[in-house]
């Protein structure tokens, strides 16, 4: 970075933090156990909630008796769906711009019918969680099991169980995007290759379970909610609306949040119940989901079946993609972001890295009696990338062409921007070819191909797979706002200097362990001109921070970071104006470097900020009367030119498949991504690596398995396999930087790139390994059983 491009102080200044690997200031707190998670917040008179959850995927129920539960020592109250109906209005999770979308009204607790196994149906409040659980076990509830609609393939067929009869059918949403003339183009193409892809239903597995502590204070009519959420202002709006409180009386606080990945950006009925019960009793009520509850009631994602075709010319030119996506989202669309977005993203993103003429993609989003699905890290991207890159590899195979060569021929040229994809996505500036070149400078291709040939001769099957991808970041109101959801696309940051020269930045974006606060501190330190240790960052409190959207969809750095930068620069301008008056210098002739006002030209120190603060705050009488004294500045930022800032990248995976056991060993993994301006290389690499691991999770291990009756089989960490360190490959991360010109900072998102591309790269690597044996897998997760079946061994 230099002064010319973004108007900041010189790169070599000691406080030039943007682009530098600065360790996260919060790490010591987290590893020393001094974080304050929601469960660590202890308020007097707190009641603990436990829920009786439906043992059936679909059932009618009657709460016959609560007396036995109330007799359990410590139990205070029992709430049924009917009790809460009077306290909390139902919601319907649709968005206006998702045309034709439908979903049924959902309540904190259902009145008489449960629609997935694990749905909370009755709440018990007690002095301790253990007593509340004893109470829940003592409830007398009569269940009448109903036929369950679990298979998404039959959800729209005659004979399907219509989960909400008032909707008429199980279709929640359908959308087709078309461009060109797919039928004609495919009919005349040199080759058409097709495949059926499946992505496995999985979930986010945050270390900290969902947690909420709601505290309604009848004395002043305020509801304070400590909450493990990514989007405190959104939750504030939702609570106010459905509990009938003015938004201004609702405060949402999230101190430390232990991981989110999208799991904690939704409205959960059991959490709404907790808030409603607190309002009813005017007492604090706490609920922390345990691991069983997490598996059965956190949102799931990625439950898709995709039939897809690619048409190519003889020379390898991609002519078009034709994609039919089907996804099952559970019994209700999730509030307020809806569960149609993932399928919609598949429609927006298939074929994304490539230039081609003809496109058709349909997503069909159906209801089913399983846990609800919704936005989880890299929403839709891993699916679209697996389909696109799986087809590209199949086309290369059909043409007898090197898959890298086919990519090189079709990736959008680096000088073709701005451009619009056949799906209608507008790209400001991407770097597919530069990223591919960079990747090939990291992957020892010749050595790997030689090793592969040598190993094959020994009967050892190794494979190398690639996956180019695009990623949607920095969302504008086009994501949710235009659909009617009160979710801010704009974010703000207030930056202030205190008398001792320390700086406090309050931001509307939030921290869940990824280091948002660290990059905000870097940006503010860089912008103001102080050491990063002088900056404290406040996030996650609707009462104390500017209104904003929170952290999701990769917006913390790109949106929150720009607001912080602008706020910091404004504060610095203000400091220099005050300093100019004190030092009788022109503000333009001064600068702030490492907490000191200096002569801009020579760097000669003129005055420490602590001295400036002392005079301003305590001896303001000595300053000119008309001098502006606001050492606090707030700036907001929203993207205006593009609905989204797309990023891009490419990954490579090198694996070995044991063709006797079906086990895949991940040997090495590479990712080059372009997130625009890199603020902290250490954190970006951590994000990319963590994202790759989560992508590998979906590709090889993670699977929410249901039986045909809709019973969840994977309810513990022993059955639901998360990726673990021992199995992870050596990972190499490289970067190309194409800053967005929409902001001074130029940052786009980096949090989802790893997850977007990893499953496709692993799939292509496995299939590269299996190719000499004539086997292929396209159904995730690629388990030993599936690989052995593909090999015809079982």
């Amino acid at each position: 970075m230099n002064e010319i491009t973004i108007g900041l102080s010189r790169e070599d200044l000691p406080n030039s933090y943007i682009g530098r690997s600065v360790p996260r200031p919060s790490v010591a707190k987290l590893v020393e156990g001094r974080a304050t998670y929601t469960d660590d917040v202890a308020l007097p008179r707190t009641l603990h909630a436990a829920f009786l959850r439906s043992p059936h995927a679909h059932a009618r129920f009657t709460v016959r008796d609560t007396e036995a539960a109330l007799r359990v020592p410590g139990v205070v109250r029992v709430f049924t769906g009917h009790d809460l109906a009077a306290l909390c209005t139902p919601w319907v999770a649709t968005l206006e711009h998702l045309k034709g979308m439908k979903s049924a009204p959902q309540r904190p607790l259902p009145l008489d019918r449960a629609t997935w196994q694990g749905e909370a149906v009755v709440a018990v409040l007690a002095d301790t969680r253990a007593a509340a659980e004893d109470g829940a076990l003592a409830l007398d509830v009569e269940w009448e099991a109903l036929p369950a609609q679990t298979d998404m393939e039959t959800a729209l067929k005659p004979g399907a169980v219509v989960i909400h009869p008032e909707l008429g059918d199980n279709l929640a949403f359908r959308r087709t995007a078309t461009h060109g003339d797919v039928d004609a183009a495919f009919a005349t193409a040199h080759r058409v290759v097709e495949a059926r892809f499946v992505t496995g239903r999985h979930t986010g597995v945050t270390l900290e379970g969902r947690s909420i502590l709601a505290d309604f204070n009848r004395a002043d009519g305020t509801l304070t909610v400590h909450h493990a959420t990514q989007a405190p202002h959104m939750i504030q709006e939702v609570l106010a609306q459905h509990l009938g409180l003015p938004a201004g009386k609702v405060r949402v606080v999230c101190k430390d949040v232990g991981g989110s990945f999208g799991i904690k950006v939704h409205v959960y009925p059991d959490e709404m119940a907790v808030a409603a019960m607190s309002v009813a009793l005017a007492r604090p009520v706490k609920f922390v989901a345990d691991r069983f509850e997490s598996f059965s009631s956190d949102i799931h994602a990625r439950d898709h079946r995709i039939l897809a075709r690619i048409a190519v010319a003889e020379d390898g030119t991609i002519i078009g993609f034709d994609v039919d996506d089907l996804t099952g989202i559970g019994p209700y669309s999730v509030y307020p972001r809806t569960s149609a977005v993932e399928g919609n993203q598949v429609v927006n993103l298939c074929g994304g890295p490539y230039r081609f003429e003809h496109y058709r993609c349909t997503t069909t989003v159906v209801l089913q009696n399983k846990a609800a699905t919704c936005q989880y890290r890299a929403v839709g991207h891993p699916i679209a990338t697996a389909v696109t890159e799986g087809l590209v590899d199949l086309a290369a195979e059909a043409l007898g062409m090197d898959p890298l060569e086919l990519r090189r021929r079709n990736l959008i040229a680096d000088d073709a921007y701005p451009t619009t994809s056949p799906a209608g996505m507008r790209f400001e500036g991407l770097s597919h070819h530069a990223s591919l070149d960079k990747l090939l400078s990291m992957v020892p291709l010749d050595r790997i191909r030689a090793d592969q040939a040598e190993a094959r001769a020994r009967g050892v099957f190794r494979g190398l797979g690639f996956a180019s991808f695009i990623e949607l970041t920095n969302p504008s109101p086009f994501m949710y706002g235009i659909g009617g959801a009160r979710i801010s696309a704009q974010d703000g940051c207030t930056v202030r200097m205190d008398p001792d020269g320390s700086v406090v930045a309050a931001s509307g974006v939030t921290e869940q362990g990824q280091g948002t606060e660290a990059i905000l501190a870097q940006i503010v330190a860089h912008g103001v001109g102080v050491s990063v240790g002088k900056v404290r960052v406040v996030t996650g409190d609707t009462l104390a921070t500017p209104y904003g959207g929170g952290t999701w969809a990769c917006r913390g750095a790109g949106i929150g970071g720009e607001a912080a930068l602008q706020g910091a620069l404004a504060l610095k301008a203000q400091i220099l104006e005050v300093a100019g008056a004190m030092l009788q210098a022109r503000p333009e002739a001064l600068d702030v470097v490492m907490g000191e006002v200096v002569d801009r030209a020579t760097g000669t120190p003129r005055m420490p900020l602590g001295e400036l603060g002392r005079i301003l705050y305590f001896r303001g009488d000595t300053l000119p009367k008309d001098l502006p004294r606001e050492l606090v500045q707030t700036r907001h930022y929203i993207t205006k030119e593009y609905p989204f800032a797309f990023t891009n990248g490419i990954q490579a995976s090198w694996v070995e498949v044991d063709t006797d056991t079906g086990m895949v060993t991940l040997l090495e993994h590479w990712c080059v991504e372009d997130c625009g301006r890199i603020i902290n290389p250490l954190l970006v690499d951590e994000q990319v690596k963590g994202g790759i691991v989560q992508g590998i999770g979906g590709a090889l291990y993670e699977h929410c398995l249901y039986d045909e009756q809709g019973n969840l089989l994977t309810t513990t960490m022993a059955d639901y396999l998360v990726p673990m360190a021992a199995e992870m490959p050596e990972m190499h991360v490289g970067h190309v930087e194409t800053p967005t010109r929409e902001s001074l900072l130029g940052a786009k998102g980096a949090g989802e790139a790893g997850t977007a591309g990893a499953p496709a790269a692993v799939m292509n690597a496995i299939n590269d390994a299996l190719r000499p044996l004539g086997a292929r897998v396209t159904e995730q997760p690629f388990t030993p059983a599936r690989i052995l079946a593909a090999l015809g061994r079982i």
Partner: protein
Amino acid sequence: MKWPATSYRRASSLGDVWQAFAEGGAGVQLLAGGQTLLATLAFRLSEPALLLDITRIPTLRGIALHGGALRIGALTTHAGLGRDPLVARHAPLLAQAVPLIAHPAIRNRGTIGGSLANADPAAELPACAVALEATLVLASAQGERRVPAGEFFTGLLSTALRPGELILAVEVPIGRGGSITEIARRSGDYAMCGLALVGARPVFFGVGDGPVLARGAGAALARGDVEAACAALDTDLDPPTDMHGPPAMKRHLARVLLRRAAAPRQEQAA
């Protein structure tokens, strides 16, 4: 979930145990390493009235040679088994099994007595005990009795232990050698399929309701016919479907393991 309300007592001698059993009967649950038991409490799968901690009873500890066998106290932890010189020398199969069991933190607490008493069908040590023709030394207020490992495991999570009885030690014939291999999705996971092979005694785990001695395969191995041994697994094993795959997959993996385990022996013989 939270544990059910349960009381806890620490026994310092076997006498304390017999007394607790006499007073509490079926409500008494022995607590060793806790690595299985405590999880079942959190699942509310068991609700014992009393957790009786046996980890401070000296007579359950120690590893020593004892009349041609290696006697391993029930409280020997997996980690302890892995680093004991006598085990390495006289019962190396057990030392080989240790890295396959769970993760270091669990191996530091989990005990051989707990593993054998728990009789998880996918556990390593029960299969090793059967393959090695070990003998379990059981004790109760009435005295001691000795049960061959092959008769100890009676079904899914069930054993020949009687009410009021505990495992004192396990005695392993020395000098048996053997090998253990398994296929698990991730390191530390219970195996999808595993094999403890001692001489011509192939004992599979993760494929049935306990350790499974494959008798037909063993007979074929004794003749040196590995292919016939693999074929015999079709009748020797009757694996259930589980989350990892269908019975056909388990049989296939069992054949792969048997072939791999038997191959080096054949090479040696050749």
